[in-house]
């Protein structure tokens, strides 16, 4: 890999397009993009401009969003629009959607007729089926015969990314059926396409959430999912390989969210990720301020604490165990929703999790009771610690399930329901419960 990088740098320094192009021809676009990411920004620009246009567009398609934006910022309108024209309409729309309005309009104007498809895609939010679909697919009229369809495929096959499925549409472009290339190849040449197509279609609307689209592709084991409007007219397709990336991305997002980290990983290539770091550090500092609530809460019970300062020894144990239970429930809820395991019976799932919390709480509460009572030689203190810990776990299980469900029901971005936010809540609930119980049993309070 390093020798490849060295060679690339030599060609770049010498401005030798032939060498670069030969080197690029040997690599898969994804590998070429990896190589590209090891270069510095000025080198990247030179590289992009020296490559063949279609090769450069392929590299651009493989690059992370921020890198693409940075590059486009440095290219003039002429260079940028030529590259965008070479890219797939869905990829071009992704890039253009991130640009400032005036630049977007200038580039679209330069792209001419091709801009129509892109403009159509631009209207859909990124996390919907419309935002993920491509308009490059093959659809044939429903009155054709197999051999005409094959002829049609030969004609368009060169341009279209993946005609594995061929869609059949009527005169109004309403989707009527689908057949695979395999079906076509094995069909008698004079069979009407209407006879070889399957009609048990699975489709989505453009506004459908992309997680839902991923679930359908997974459930029905599809290679591509057609996107249709309210009248059943075909708008585009979503391919399984794009959805695979979505699924992986969303898995990462869920895990990071549970830990209160930014929703995406920063790559190791390129410079130090300042903005990403600022997000991480900012989140933690913000959470510290939230935690002051717990400190204020405890200070309200100063007189109780003064009577028995030993109560404070158990703060970490109670808060941590409740926090653990809460984040476990959160993980069950978040991944359950993402994979569709929980289904429609969310309340039943929540009830079962709370019951789990009760069993766990009973056992852990007993353990805490034994520890506190034996160590401090006080049955009362043991009961307060064990009782509070046990009850907190039930509460934590309920909160861990209900917070993400609640956000989903309110259509609030569930990213807010992070693990750290949850532990802040369980801290306050468990310690509040603990100190109230202590005050009732041991006396105190103004």
């Amino acid at each position, binding site marked *: 890999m390093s020798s490849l990088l060295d060679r690339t740098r030599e060609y770049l320094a010498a401005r030798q397009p032939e060498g670069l192009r030969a080197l690029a021809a040997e690599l898969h676009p994804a590998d070429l993009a990896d190589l590209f990411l090891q270069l510095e920004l000025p080198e990247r620009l030179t590289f992009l401009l020296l490559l063949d246009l279609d090769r450069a567009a392929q590299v651009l398609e493989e690059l992370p969003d921020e890198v693409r934006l940075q590059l486009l910022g440095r290219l003039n309108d002429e260079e940028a629009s030529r590259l965008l024209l070479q890219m797939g309409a869905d990829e071009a729309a992704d890039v253009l959607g991130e640009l400032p309005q005036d630049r977007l309009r200038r580039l679209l104007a330069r792209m001419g007729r091709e801009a129509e498809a892109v403009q159509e895609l631009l209207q859909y939010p990124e996390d919907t089926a419309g935002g993920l679909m491509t308009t490059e697919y093959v659809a044939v009229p429903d009155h054709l015969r197999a051999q005409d369809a094959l002829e049609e*495929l030969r004609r368009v096959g060169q341009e279209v990314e993946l005609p594995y499925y061929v869609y059949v549409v009527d005169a109004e472009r309403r989707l009527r059926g689908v057949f695979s290339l395999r079906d076509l190849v094995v069909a008698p040449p004079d069979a009407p396409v209407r006879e070889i197509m399957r009609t048990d279609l699975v489709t989505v609307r453009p506004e459908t959430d992309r997680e839902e689209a991923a679930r359908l592709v*997974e459930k029905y084991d599809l290679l591509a999912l057609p996107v249709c409007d309210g009248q059943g007219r075909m708008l585009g397709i979503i391919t399984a390989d794009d959805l695979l990336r979505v699924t992986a991305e969303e898995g990462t997002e869920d895990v990071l969210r549970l830990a209160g980290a930014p929703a995406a990983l920063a790559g190791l290539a390129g410079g130090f990720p300042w903005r990403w770091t600022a997000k991480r550090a900012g989140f933690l500092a913000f959470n510290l301020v939230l935690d002051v609530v717990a400190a204020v809460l405890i200070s309200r019970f100063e007189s109780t604490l003064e009577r028995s300062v030993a109560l404070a020894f158990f703060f970490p144990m109670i808060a941590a165990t409740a926090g653990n239970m809460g984040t476990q429930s959160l*993980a069950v809820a978040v991944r359950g929703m993402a994979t569709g395991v929980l289904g429609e019976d969310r309340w039943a799932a929540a009830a079962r999790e709370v019951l789990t919390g009760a069993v766990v709480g009973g056992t852990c509460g007993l353990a805490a009771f034994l520890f506190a009572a034996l160590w401090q030689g006080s049955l009362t203190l043991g009961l307060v610690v064990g009782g509070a810990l046990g009850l907190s776990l039930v509460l934590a299980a309920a909160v861990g399930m209900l917070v993400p469900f609640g956000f989903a029901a309110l259509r609030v971005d569930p990213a807010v329901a992070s693990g750290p936010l949850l532990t802040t809540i369980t801290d306050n609930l468990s310690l509040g419960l603990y100190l109230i119980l202590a005050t009732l049993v041991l006396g105190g309070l103004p």
Partner: protein
Amino acid sequence: MNRLGERLRQLLRDPARVREAVRDAHPADVAEALKRLSDPEARQVLEALGPRGAEVMEYLPPERQRALLQEVSPDLQTEILEGMSTDDAADLLGSLRPEEARTLLDRMAPAEAEDVRRLLRYRPQTAGGRMTPEFVAVHHDQTVAEALEHLRRVAPAAETVYYVYVVDSEGRLRGVVSLRDLIVARPESRVAAVMTTRVVSVQAEDDQETVARLFEKYGLLALPVVDRVGRLLGVVTVDDILDVVEEEATEDAYRLTGLVEAVEAERSPWQRALRRLPWLLALMALEAVTARVAGHFEHALQALVALAFFIPMLNDQAGNMGIQCAAIAVRAIATGEVDRRTYRAFLLREGLVGLLSALLSAGVAAAIGWVWWRDPRLSLALAATVFVAMNLAALLGSLVPLGLTLLRRDPAVASGPFITSLMDLVTVTVYFTVAVRMLRLGG
């Protein structure tokens, strides 16, 4: 979907009407309906469906497949196993007791049983375990017309005909050609002339995560699996990998929070509680040590109760930093961002992020102490604890997953709660040492 389940339940006594009811339904939807029926009810549906039942079985979760297979008659067992695609049949048989699997294999048609046996040799979570032997391969000397003719003959059996693989006389993988390319090419040209030789492949022993990364990176629909000398053994398809990616993310999320089982949602509360308890109790033991440490400073606490107010806040802060770093390390390992080549750069970056985050939070902590208490010593104690604990947490959070990976263990194994509890101990110790021993607060 619900309705189909209800309809089927009412029609159970009438096999013909059951067949009629599911005729136009997708097998995945029939499977969905079966999930709502009891095992004996589902058996009746499968009996009515006959060979079509095999297709439905493929869409059921593994435990249910196993239960239903044991429910149906021996004849239907064989019929279902032969009808399922070879990789699914192998997965199902592999989950049974060995002698049970052997009996069933002996009853299957010899050719199909042989295909399944070959797959059973590979461990389930490898490329070999995930592949199907139902692919189309042509010889590189064949013409495009011959290849298409071959395809017509074998296509109905093969699961994945979007790529046609090209092999030499020894069965070694030479290239790949898409169906599109074959259709578009001139019939008399040789396959070798239209194929791509730059073909991404994996070895049968490769881990399924490696396979998933390749699918993501190259945007593939299918990936050929070869043996050590490059002979084509089978093909892994994108739909199987989609499941792998989803399972893995769930596993990471669960393990990171101290959960063990990936099918958590399907178990009873008792079972779930039993699985979680050992870890939670072990962590409580660690928290008991923390309590003992705090106990050493009882006098100082008695003199200045306010010291106790900040314990949960400090614990939380260090724990959050640790979990954040652990999650980032776990997913960076899972997505292939971090490996033997890049782990130094990764640690360096995370260390720097930890340092900057600790500085910012220490500043905030000092401000909190000052605004509330107007005591520079308390401010200093809070800031120092936050700073030390967060740096340690960042280090520990990144190192634990990396270390577990080096030991060939799952990097996510309960990293989160373990790091949090360990950090509780560190935080309390540092806090009291700085505040009481060094700054004489409460003394």
